[in-house]
């Protein structure tokens, strides 16, 4: 006899934004999985219309408090593409440094405050801090280094204001950058200690057959540059995004679901970057990967915590390299006359690829905007992860099944607030 039951998490904890989860079980099979995102639509794409292109990085930075740099980088990339601006190499490198700061602070927060408690059986980081205070302290110290990098390049730590189309409003002096080095060295040392600790966590067995999608850059581990690649052989220019990917509405969520047109759901984020760019990691990050036992590709979403640590080390190490080899740019930004056009930009936000597309009129005013955040791209795959563990959930008592289901969601560090700025608002009557 099969029995049916419903696992319902009315408000997901330790994820950003307002979301819920309903799994309808039919025996040991999930007949329905709905990751319900009820964060109100934020309509960013609509209110960008009619604004000047130079305003966009400051407006899009407000979409997210933990990944504003990603929104700034994807938006300036798209607008520079439309205006035909190629930024100077020192500016490109300073943007990478800024992005390093964002990865460090975002990943550190997720690893130490949101994700690690799952593996150790604590309700939250506060409970974990009683027994693992040294690790929490190290994690927070690493996060502060990321904050300091963002504040130095971005003008302030939260919602930075120094990024502009073509470059920066002000380039920091060399001394300001060099002042970051002691903190970066301390954070690298802390990450080495943390690596051994994280490697000893108990990771549930779950191997998924993801199509992993990320930027791949010939020169380096990807931040702002490269083509869109996947483990299924995809290799396209960023401006072909819409030809390959499609977003669709589902009735229970204010975030759109994305899929590869020809195939289906996919995953972006740390697992994808690591799978497609492990050969671009620096020596320090490779060493960390060895320490924690990671080999690319990693298809176990629980082990994403390890990949985030590898990426923290990569970002710290690259930040160190960029500062040590810093060449001041001749000018803080490149300018270009207004012109009509369409531009595309994709960068690697901490939780995955973030795509922007803008249409500009002859005065460089925005006539159309499109923003595809990583969480909406991953939403369908997160639901499929839950389907994949349905038999495990069925065997667990309700409270444990609920906790396990939440863990499946948190593996991907979803940022629900980011994902809910869809444009097509439909009212059913």
């Amino acid at each position, binding site marked *: 006899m099969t029995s049916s039951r419903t696992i319902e998490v009315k408000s997901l*904890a*330790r*994820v*950003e*934004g307002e979301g819920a989860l309903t799994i309808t079980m039919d025996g040991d099979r999930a007949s329905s999985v709905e990751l319900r995102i009820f964060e109100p639509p934020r309509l960013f794409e609509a209110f960008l219309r009619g604004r000047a292109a130079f305003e966009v990085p400051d407006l899009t930075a*407000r979409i*997210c*408090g*933990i990944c504003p740099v990603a929104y700034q980088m994807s938006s300036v990339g798209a607008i520079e593409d439309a205006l035909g601006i190629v930024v100077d190499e020192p500016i490109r490198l300073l943007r990478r440094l800024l992005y390093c700061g964002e990865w460090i602070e*975002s990943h550190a*927060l997720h690893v130490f*405050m*949101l994700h690690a408690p799952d593996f150790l059986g604590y309700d939250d*980081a*506060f409970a974990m*801090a*009683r027994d693992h*205070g040294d690790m*929490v*302290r190290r994690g*927070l*110290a690493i*996060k*502060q280094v990321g*904050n300091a990098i963002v*504040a130095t390049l971005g*003008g*302030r*730590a*939260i*919602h930075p*204001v120094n990024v502009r189309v073509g470059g920066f409003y002000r380039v920091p002096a060399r001394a300001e950058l060099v002042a970051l080095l002691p903190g970066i060295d301390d954070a690298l040392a802390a990450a080495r200690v943390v690596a051994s600790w994280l490697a000893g966590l108990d990771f549930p067995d779950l191997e998924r057959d993801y199509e992993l999608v990320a930027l791949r850059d010939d020169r380096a581990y990807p931040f702002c540059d490269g083509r869109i690649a996947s483990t299924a052989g995809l290799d396209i220019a960023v401006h072909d995004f819409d030809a390959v990917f499609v977003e669709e509405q589902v009735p229970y969520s204010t975030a759109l679901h994305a899929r590869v047109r020809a195939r289906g759901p996919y995953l972006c984020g740390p697992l994808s970057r690591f799978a497609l760019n492990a050969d671009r990691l620096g020596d320090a990050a490779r060493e960390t990967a060895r320490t924690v036992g990671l080999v690319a590709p990693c298809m176990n979403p629980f082990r994403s915590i390890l990949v985030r640590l590898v990426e923290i080390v990569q970002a710290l190490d690259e930040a160190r390299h960029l500062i040590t080899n810093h060449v001041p740019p001749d000018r803080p930004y490149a300018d270009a006359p207004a012109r009509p056009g369409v531009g595309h930009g994709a960068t690697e936000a901490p939780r995955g690829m973030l795509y922007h597309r803008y249409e500009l009129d002859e005065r460089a005013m925005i006539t159309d905007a499109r923003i595809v955040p990583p969480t909406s791209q991953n939403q369908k795959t997160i639901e499929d992860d839950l389907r994949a563990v349905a038999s495990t959930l069925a065997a667990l008592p309700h409270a444990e099944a609920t906790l396990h289901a939440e863990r499946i969601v948190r593996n991907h560090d979803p*940022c629900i*607030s980011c994902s809910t700025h869809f444009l097509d608002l439909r009212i059913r009557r």
Partner: protein
Amino acid sequence: MIVIGLGQRAAGDDGVGPVIVDGLRAIGRPDLALLEVAEPSGLISLLATSEPVVIVDAVVDGESEGELVELAELPRGMRTVSTHGIDLGQAVALAGLLAGAPHIHFVGVTIACTSGAYLSAAVAAAVPRAIERILELATAGCSRCCRTAGSPSDARCRRSTARSAHRSRPRRRRRTGATSRP
């Protein structure tokens, strides 16, 4: 005594904490350690101290601008700004777990605007009053008495705490810390 200005410069009135620290620095009080931090998670390492601490921050109460708010103890369960950040109450609680929190006296200035590069006129007008109040706390030894006795014993401190207790019953939802929506 340590004074920590919490908030972001170039974020309108959210920068009132750092601006107050600037004012204290200009006065020149070598007995005060003056620090600044942009967001609450940065507080945790600064609170690993046995020195009494004054945290000065912007407060949104939905009703006023430029009014001083004092709390001798932070209420628990203050609204979290975002799960992708740590709010002031959480930062103090976590600091306590990690190192044992020092005595913390909270001085807030109510604000309404987090846009623009500078403070609004109403909030800027409150800066000298906040500085005066922090200097009172430092010179009267209020924090020292609070630290040693575990509860306010100085008359000046009691008055402050009594006012704080009254003010800490919010008529409307209050939140502190970074005021923009992450």
